[in-house]
């Protein structure tokens, strides 16, 4: 039996806090950010390392670039990416007024 609308929770009736249009638009933006993040993840985690052999011909401060990307470069990208993601997603939450009270 599909229940439509609000469901009674143990903390009393829980109102639908966000109207449907806003909710959908919010989720579209959140999904787009998710795909962008996954793309960066795929490139840093896999993509660049496909070219490790050719990147190794370039040397920076003694580091062959292909080796460096797997040892440190991609890790730095992941860390920066996550701090940026947290900031970006918070901004999206606020834009749609769905941040936590």
């Amino acid at each position: 039996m599909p229940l439509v609308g609000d469901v009674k929770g143990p903390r009393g009736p829980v109102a639908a806090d966000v109207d449907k249009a806003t909710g959908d638009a919010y989720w579209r933006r959140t999904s787009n950010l998710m795909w962008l993040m996954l793309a960066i993840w795929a490139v840093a985690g896999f993509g660049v390392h496909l070219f490790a052999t050719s990147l190794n011909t370039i040397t920076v401060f003694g580091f062959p670039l292909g080796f460096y990307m797997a040892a440190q470069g991609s890790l730095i990208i992941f860390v920066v990416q996550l701090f940026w993601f947290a900031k970006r997603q918070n901004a999206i939450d606020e834009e749609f007024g769905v941040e936590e009270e």
Partner: protein
Amino acid sequence: MSDAPKAQSGDFLSNLGRIYGWYTGGFAAFVLVLALLEQVGVPNRIIGYLFVFLTIGVYALIGYLSRTAQVSEYYVAGRRVPALYNGMATGSDWMSAASFIGMAGTLYLQGYDGLAFVLGWTGGYVLVAILLAPYLRKFGAYTVPDFLGARYGGNLARLAGVIVLMSASFTYVVAQIFGTGIIASRFLGISFEVSVFVGLAGILVCSMLGGMRAVTWTQVAQYIILIIAYLLPVVLLSAKVTGVPVPQLMYGQALEQIEALRLTKEALAGAPSHITPFINSDPINFFGLIFCLMLGTASLPHILMRYFTTPSVRDARQSVAWSLFFIFLLYFTAPAYAAFAKLEVFTNVIGAPIASLPEWVSIWSNIGLVRVTDANADGILQFREFVINADAIVLATPEIAGLPYVIAGLVAAGGLAAALSTADGLLLAIANALSHDVYYRMIDPQANSKRRLVVARILLVVVAIIAAWVASTRPAGILAMVAWAFSIAASGLFPALVMGVWWKRTTSAGAVAGMVVGYGVCLFYLIGTQYYGMPLWFGIRNISCGLFGIPAAFLTTFVVSLMTQAPSQAMQDFIDSIRTPRGGVRMVGGEKVLD
């Protein structure tokens, strides 16, 4: 007791920076005092004892002070752990004895190809942050199977989750206890079997009285010790070799010298390149392993449950970023360890007369981690005549750098902290799944909170003792089995968790079928190739068996979901409510929202 800790913890939480600042200073002072004691002639054995017992004593004290009688404190530390400190706790929860001691050695032995571990064990946090942690936090679970039970309406999905969790976490925790046993026996000079139970005591005092709350604050303390212990020796070694105490930047020079020596030094004939990719593993195994480790990271319950403890969804996201940062500090240093150790071996060990090798070689030969043979009887050590165990690299660095024994004791304390903290997290994940999901949710939903806590503690002790007993039998290949945990967790849990949040159409039947198929395919390939001589599929090693299990699980979940009736409107509302940070969670069918 139930009221007092609450008042205390208010003070405690607002003073975290000061408390852990003093703690770090106190630890530094402790190391300096031991260094002085060593100079005035206190024997090494006593220094080892002091390191092991004083650090375990501090963890026990924190565990005792964090005791609690409240269910939400026990399971999720009252959901009050600030993002930064939860990040530190996750760091030590994550980094095990294998990361601390074994990682640099793997890089030493495998060169570029070992970097699959560095990439796989960091990149997974991106998936945790964007796909899972904020939504699981919003749902407000106590355990990972809790989410499966609510999303897939029933105990079948919950039970499937518990089974995957148990199989992934149990071998992992046995390996950690094994690791504490090895470290404790080496530095206390007692038998391995006894050391295992010393380690067990160390683990239990941290977690039994205070559950997640105690484990959290001990893990923060353990992170501080393990990161100091990891960085200090290699910083000093870098300063000695290059004159600059920043190993992460300076090991480029070491890499250049290693490659130059390899090509010019006669005794190094046969040494593989340190920087050339795909020597030990072909690209498909290299990338396959990265893939399985990353998705496994995002499915291991002892990691996911750390994000249930933050005060908000926003903090959960921020906390994953901090976790990765604190993990990164160790992982981006590991390649430097490997390079400096290799340079030392290539310059001063290989090609030297066997009669006059550096002192550290004989120290570690005695323990069996280094083996020197003179196969061609020319009195000169050739590359092929020198074998070093992966575990020796980090442990031997203090001696390689000619540092006093106190630094070796510090490294041991760090390794112990890494093993204990991971074991704590894993044990808690297993015992909580049993006490919360199996006992409370499935067997006796009427149990009051006092009874639930008693059951939780008893199960914790029982699981710990079984794990310690298994470890004390020195099971063969236990360390190899740890790597399997990632594939098992990813195949069994990742699709059900991710699709549960991101695809509303996922049905209970689809999720359960996906979990069963993924877990089944993964285990079939593992056991078949490992024990029954089954040929490898496409040449993929069984450490990456998730490469078959994960797609199978995704596909099954997808197909079966489309074949079964779409989830009810109430379920779709529930999914909407966990996707949105604001507002309450709209549970289906009158299930209770947890505190």
